[in-house]
């Protein structure tokens, strides 16, 4: 097994929460919550401006994991066993989100990685624990 616990998964900027990106995600995901689209609705909810969907940024976290798996040569014999996303801060309109982390557990059958998504203010927006399992 070539993986070691503590090995870094370098931080990479994945995407930016522009108005167009939020609108497209609302439609593609079927999430009708107006706090992602409408400034007035966001303010009514006590938010400073419209915010990105937690699950949109969770998708970006998954994309970071996918790139890492590709680079490490983890092929289709590896599949997802579980993912837990904890939403800790907000992604505001036009925030660029960077994702990186490290390997937490590794053996022949399982890999557990932890990834943090950070906004430009350095806040952790999502802390994710992702478990991969070898499919025999």
């Amino acid at each position: 097994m070539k993986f070691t616990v503590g090995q870094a998964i370098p931080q990479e900027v994945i995407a930016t929460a522009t108005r167009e990106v939020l609108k497209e995600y609302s439609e593609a995901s079927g999430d009708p919550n107006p706090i992602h689209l409408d400034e007035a609705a966001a303010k009514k909810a006590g938010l400073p401006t419209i915010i990105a969907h937690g699950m949109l940024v969770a998708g970006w976290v998954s994309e970071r994991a996918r790139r890492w798996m590709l680079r490490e040569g983890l092929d289709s014999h590896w599949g997802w066993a579980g993912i837990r996303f904890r939403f800790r801060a907000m992604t505001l309109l036009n925030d660029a989100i960077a994702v990186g982390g490290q390997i937490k557990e590794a053996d022949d059958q399982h890999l557990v990685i932890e990834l943090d998504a950070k906004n430009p203010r350095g806040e952790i927006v999502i802390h994710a624990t992702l478990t991969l399992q070898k499919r025999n």
Partner: protein
Amino acid sequence: MDLKSKIGTRSKIYSEILDAAKVTRFAQAVAYPDNQTIPPTYPTRFRSGEFELFDQLQVPLWRVLHGEQEYEYTSDLRVGQALEYETIFADYHEKKGSKESLHFLIFETQVRSAGAETALLITRSTMIIRGTLG
């Protein structure tokens, strides 16, 4: 509304065929360019039961903040698969903060192959509402 007494409320059963065009659009929307595999967050589309329960529990959507999302995958989803899913209002608790109370609503969704008994995947959402409810 006394949310505690509503724990165990179930949505109806929803059916969906995993449609290639919808999967592609979703993957593009989350900057996931791989067209070999379905993004692991795709099951966020199976939230109709959750929305139905928000309605039943009289929780307005604009007040809902996502606290945590968990997925347990038993097998990979495939395009073309016929699925059914249903959501249960699994748990509820409150925390009194210094300024306002926080309400935690937990929803669990089982996604199955149509007609099957065992789940292909289980999703667990923790939703937070701040302030006074009802």
